């Protein structure tokens, strides 16, 4: 009752305020109502529901389709386990040891499942597609970009002038060039420079282009982490008799990387979304497969449904990555030695 009275009094004293608020509330309700009624009634979701395997794996050979599907489900399962199982030092140490290695193992596993080998039928990369290709592009370029970015960050903060200036030049150039230009270079120009019969796998070209680009940004994020570590820590490490390399490996980098995690997560999420640019360059990843299906005469004009579906998928992946990153961030000691 008191809240109601306060509200009414507020309305009497600030009429314009109240009208504006009511208008905005009405607008929100109208937008929500229109969207929900479209999703439930007007939209024809058959274009999505009848192509779920294609969205997952593209034009991967039909009898081998279980391989990308298996990889995606393993990734999903691992994500769920990681998010659910509490990782604290001391308790549940076994999980804390095993999970990181599971994640590391997922990458070669994904490559083997997608490409074949080790008893599986080889499937050339041009048959890869859909979600599995999007995730593979993201994961592989992230894994390449991280060590390269760390090296660049160390080079950028190094005392050796040649190393410092060349790292800085690389970072500045890469950050000044738009990603689409780097991708065009990798996809269209590199083949022109190579001898006629030499051909580099187009997925590898894309991964390398993404990694080279992302490394420049990763380097700056890591440098931020490095600069947050007080000089006294290095001095203390030196006093304890650690070599500069050991001090870097055992003291500085683990802390710097932990500080850089939120920024690195940004890069990873950006990377995932940027892989959709490859649809412009002929890779049939998630966006590419959607465009192919939209050309099927049976489904022309279903753009809105397909793009809403794509938006939901990208949202799901990005949210999962953000949650995982938060988990990692909260699972270990912080700079001050306290568990966050």
């Amino acid at each position, binding site marked *: 009752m008191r809240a109601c009275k306060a509200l009414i009094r507020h309305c009497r004293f600030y009429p314009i305020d109240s009208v504006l608020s009511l208008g905005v509330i009405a607008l929100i309700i109208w937008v929500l109502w229109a969207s929900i009624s479209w999703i439930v009634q007007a939209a024809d979701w058959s274009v999505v529901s009848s192509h779920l395997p294609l969205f997952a794996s593209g034009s991967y050979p039909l009898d081998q389709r279980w391989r990308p599907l298996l990889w995606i489900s393993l990734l999903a399962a691992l994500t769920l386990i990681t998010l659910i199982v509490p990782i604290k030092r001391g308790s549940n140490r076994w999980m804390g040891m095993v999970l990181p290695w599971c994640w590391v193992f997922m990458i070669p596993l994904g490559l083997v499942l997608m490409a074949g080998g080790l008893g599986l039928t080889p499937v050339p990369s041009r048959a890869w597609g859909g979600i599995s290709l999007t995730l593979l592009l993201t994961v592989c370029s992230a894994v*390449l970009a991280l060590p390269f970015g760390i090296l660049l960050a160390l080079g950028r903060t190094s005392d050796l002038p040649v190393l410092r200036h060349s790292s800085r030049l690389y970072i500045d150039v890469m950050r000044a060039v738009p990603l689409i230009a780097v991708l065009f270079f990798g996809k269209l120009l590199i083949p022109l420079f190579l001898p006629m019969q030499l051909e580099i796998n187009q997925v590898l070209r894309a991964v390398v282009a993404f990694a080279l680009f992302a490394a420049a940004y990763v380097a700056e994020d890591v440098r931020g982490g490095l600069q947050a570590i007080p000089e006294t820590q290095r001095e203390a490490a030196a006093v304890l008799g650690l070599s500069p390399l050991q001090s870097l490996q055992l003291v500085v980098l683990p802390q710097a990387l932990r500080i850089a995690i939120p920024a690195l997560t940004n890069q990873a999420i950006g990377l995932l979304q940027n892989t959709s640019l490859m649809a412009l360059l002929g890779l049939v990843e998630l966006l590419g497969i959607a465009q192919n299906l939209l050309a099927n005469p049976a489904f022309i004009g279903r753009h809105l449904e397909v793009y809403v579906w794509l938006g939901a998928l990208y949202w799901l992946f990005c949210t999962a990555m953000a949650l995982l990153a938060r988990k990692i961030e909260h699972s270990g000691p912080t700079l001050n030695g306290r568990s966050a």
Partner: protein
Amino acid sequence: MPFRTLWVSLAAALMLQACATLGEGGASRLGLIQQRQTLRCGVSGKIPGFSFLSSDGDYSGLDIDLCRAFAAAFIGDADAIEFRQLTAPERFTALRTGEVDLLSRNTTFNLSRDAAGGNGVSFAPVVFHDGQGLMVKTSRGIRTIDDLNGETICVGSGTTTEQNLNDAFEARGIAYTPIKYQDLNQVVAGYLQGRCAAMTSDRSQLAAARSGFAKPKQHQILEAVLSKEPLAPLSAGGDQRLGDAMRWVVYALITAEELGITKANVGDWLDKANKQTELTRLRRFLGVDGDLGMKLGLEADFVVKTIAATGNYGEIYNRHLGPNSAVPIPRGINQLYRDGGAMTAPPFQ
């Protein structure tokens, strides 16, 4: 150091794959295709009726069937194809670098693409005569191209379409505002959302797009044809053997339609040719007599294999663009010469 192990294993895995494609050689691309036993065909993958991904994950369309015809003629297996999706800007680069053997990708045959001073590619005969048109909403009251004065027009960028639009409107002194999109599906979406008064593309693509609209009758394709768009498959220039082989495969499809040889009855025709020695023209065409196939660097019976795989030109057309298909486009100029169209083939002699 998990990162290092990872990095090394990843690099090794991908490098191995890259190396696996090394070591192929040969003077003509045709020999390479036959040695490799697969045809690498560059396609669009995004054009209804011409090339798209069907619900079972296979490519389908008129451009795709031409790839299949080439594979059947060159290798003897219409399914021995690797399809590569290429966007308009990258298609000629992919051809030049050898990433694909040939393009069957809605490419307009014109001088600057054909000439050595331009893109320097080599075109096979035209497989679909198209022309650029304009589509408007009937309710807008636009009847002729002059009614579009001062209007906005949705157009795909980086293609001859954009240039033709400009040329046609400049010539008539009509002002317009272009809204450019990357590909046709986006042009369609922009047009349907009402961002422009008209959309322009090849008339075949307009018809294809319209057939998918919720209310196709509310859209009208104007009479005006802004350009000739003869679409043809192509290979890299300077490779006469591959160019010739492609040319005569297309001619074989047209000749088969002239003779009434279809996918279903090609076996009967072959029996007939084998039995009746007086049918010299037919025997030459089907490779029973003579060495026409060998002159092209193909098997003697490449025509039989091609027709058995895809049917003749008319069958391919009707399958994807005929009256009962999902994207019906009246055959018009694409009929055989004897039916009043422009499709004809030189003699197999």
